């Protein structure tokens, strides 16, 4: 909370442009569409001619709408004297903060070029000794369950045989994919609707995010995992009942340890009604849940949510991947959670301080492996479902995540990209030109929920086919047999210590 001061702006440094829409006047027909479509107002009209004005973020909207393909967005060369240590990004950050005194904000997952451990891992395949399976002629099962796993099942005899121990609420999904939590507020109504429609069509689960659930979406209840976050936005009896699963959000991969601030200008009438907060005020999610200061407290929130849903819904806990994630996950299972969601540090966000987005957390690959190993060692792994995301970009990443120990791959950014997102990292400005991360009516209307949902459905059906191909090729006939099957992975990266921590053999090592 800064005090507003009216500093003289005399010394303000203007940052050079990063991108430039370049218009080919030979083909441009001066239809002005790009001018109207650019929500960043980076194109202007001068002397009845469209001209670049500055502020382009390379969102690509103008390219998509130009009828004559007259626009090209050029990344401009650095305008700074080269320096290996004082990179352009460092210097731009300093100029910006010296101008504003503010905390630098951004969105999407970190764009820093960190190593991708998924790319250092190779999958196995069957040859000779264990036949591979052709999914076209033999079943390769991708059905997945979300919820508490029975530690034991007892069948007791009475008048009829019945289960008398071990059954809990569990959700059946057609593929090991969960659409991650994106809240109404960070994205538009149409975007959330598209995600829920896709989840229903695919028979999987989509996260509600922490912004409550609009009553229109109660029809998708069987495919929604609703979130109880520190702000408790929209959390009431009907919210907890109109959902397939409940998830306590402790942390988010893009901003571990932080809460959230939805700026007042995004708290429109719709958002205020869904979050049940006053119009136009900042919506603050406190950093911790103030009723959870320990694992014992977490156990109580899990228990009260189970009471509230009359033991009819799985109750899980979502945490950001942090260095002690194994021990934390163990505590969460012991506290009675039915599932754990782990969000890696490359996970997306509608808004996060850059300093935390770019610097804090743990790669999801490592987090999955250490949690799976820790829970297995402690005899707890068979009680929970693990969903993991934050950096899963394609079916290969998903398959590797499952083999490392996750039951379910949580994916959001890929679904957004399927809908048109260009990962321009401007979501926090509320001006998304693709109608995704915005509350402005005119921009929102650019996203057609049916078409967007169909794109997401096609994407994940394709991923699921690729999953069936690959595990069939490994000679595995069910995705459940791949979970935690690290013996079918080999590490080929630069750091054998990482392989050791993840329990991976390196390339060239055989079985046994």
């Amino acid at each position, binding site marked *: 909370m800064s005090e507003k001061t009216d500093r003289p702006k005399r010394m303000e440094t203007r940052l050079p442009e990063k991108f430039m829409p370049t218009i080919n006047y030979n083909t441009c027909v001066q239809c002005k569409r790009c001018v109207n479509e650019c929500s960043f107002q980076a194109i202007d009209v001068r002397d009845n001619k469209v001209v670049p004005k500055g502020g382009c973020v390379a969102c690509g909207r103008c390219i998509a709408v130009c009828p004559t393909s007259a626009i090209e967005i050029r990344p401009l060369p650095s305008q700074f004297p080269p320096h290996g240590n004082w990179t352009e990004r460092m210097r*731009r950050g300093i100029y910006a903060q010296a101008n504003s005194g*503010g905390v630098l904000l951004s969105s999407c997952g970190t764009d820093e070029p960190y190593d991708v451990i998924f790319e250092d891992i190779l999958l196995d395949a069957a040859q000779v000794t264990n036949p591979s399976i052709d999914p076209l002629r033999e079943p390769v099962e991708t059905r997945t369950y979300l919820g508490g796993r029975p530690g034991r099942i007892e069948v007791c005899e009475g008048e009829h045989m019945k289960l008398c121990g071990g059954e809990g609420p569990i959700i059946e999904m057609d593929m090991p994919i969960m659409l991650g939590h994106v809240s109404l507020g960070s994205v538009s109504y149409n975007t959330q609707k598209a995600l829920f429609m896709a989840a229903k069509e695919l028979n999987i689960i989509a996260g509600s995010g922490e912004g409550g659930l609009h009553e229109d979406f109660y029809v998708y209840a069987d495919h929604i995992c609703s979130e109880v976050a520190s702000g408790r936005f929209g959390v009431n*009896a009907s919210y907890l009942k109109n959902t397939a699963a409940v998830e306590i959000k402790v942390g988010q991969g893009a901003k571990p340890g932080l809460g959230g601030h939805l700026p007042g200008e995004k708290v429109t009438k719709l958002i205020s009604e869904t979050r*049940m907060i006053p119009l136009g005020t900042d919506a*603050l999610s406190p950093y911790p849940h103030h009723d959870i200061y320990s694992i014992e407290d977490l156990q109580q929130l899990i228990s009260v949510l189970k*009471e*509230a849903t009359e033991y009819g819904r799985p109750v899980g806990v979502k945490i950001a991947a942090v260095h002690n994630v194994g021990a934390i996950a163990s505590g969460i299972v012991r506290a009675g959670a039915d599932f754990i969601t782990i969000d890696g540090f490359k996970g997306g966000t509608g808004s996060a301080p850059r300093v935390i987005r770019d610097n804090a957390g743990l790669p999801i690959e490592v987090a999955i492996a250490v949690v799976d190993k820790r829970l297995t060692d402690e005899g707890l792994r068979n009680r929970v479902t693990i969903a993991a995301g934050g950096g899963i970009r394609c079916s290969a990443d998903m398959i590797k995540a499952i083999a490392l120990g996750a039951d379910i791959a949580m994916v959001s950014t890929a679904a957004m990209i399927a809908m048109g997102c260009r990962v321009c990292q401007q979501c926090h400005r509320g001006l998304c030109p693709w109608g995704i991360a915005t509350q402005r009516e005119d921009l929102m209307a650019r996203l057609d929920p049916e078409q967007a949902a169909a794109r997401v459905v096609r994407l994940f059906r394709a991923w699921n086919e690729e999953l069936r191909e690959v595990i069939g090729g490994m000679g595995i006939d069910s995705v459940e047999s791949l979970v935690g099957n690290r013996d079918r992975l080999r590490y080929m990266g630069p750091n054998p210590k990482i392989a050791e921590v993840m329990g991976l053999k390196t390339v060239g090592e055989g079985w046994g």
Partner: protein
Amino acid sequence: MSNIDYEYHADECDCGKDCTFTKEGVATIRADGRDTGKGPLHYKTLNCAIRKAIASDIRTIIIEEVMGQRYIGATASGTDLRIVVHGTPGNSLGAFLNGPTIEVLGNAQDMTGNTMNSGKIIIHGNAWDVTGLSARGGTIMIKGSSGYRVGIHMKEFGKTRPSLVIGGTVKDYLGEYMAGGTILVLGLRSHVDSPVGHNIGAGMHGGRIYVRGKVTSRQLGPGAIISPVTEEDSAELTSLIEEFEGYFGEPVGRDYSNFVKIHPSSSRPFSGYYDKTNI
């Protein structure tokens, strides 16, 4: 190896022995389980018995000999439902409460009225930490005192506005992150200088806190400021105090000159905090 004993059953109150006695539309549940011969009821059993009573259209439920059972009345709905608790309920009493009145003839523990939606919780003793967390409607009246982190992130929406009245004193972190609603601390029977602790209203961006007694700006968290009570405030104060006196029969008085009001300095505490430059 794990030594967790997993219990999945929600229908534990189907033990065959009835712990609920119904007479003329009033259900009485003995939480010490004396009549079941099985010892005190587990919270799951007690809550299951409560849910059953509600489902069979009972509108008054009396629970006797409550010994720390948690989550009593969680998500209970209906404005005509009344739950009377004799003894000491456990944590998260009346969580997500949606209309009913819960009256406790004893002390309550932590997290009373957690994320409550509407209804009333009346405590004839003290209520400890984290009372009224994230409440967005309804009324919590406490005759005695409350502890730390009380009324954090209460918020109002439309016509619903939560109120929390504490007869005695509270400790630190009162009304942090508050986004709406009213907290009133009466400081009755207190001998300390100020009936409230430190870091009051940190991050507050809505709502109001009235305190009968002294508060200095050093007790406030960032984002909160102190003002004298206005005419408009006194109408709300009078109605809350009348309600308090009605429940507990303890006179408070109407001299508002020794009350102070704590409220947010802005509804947008984070505007200007961030830099959105595309570095």
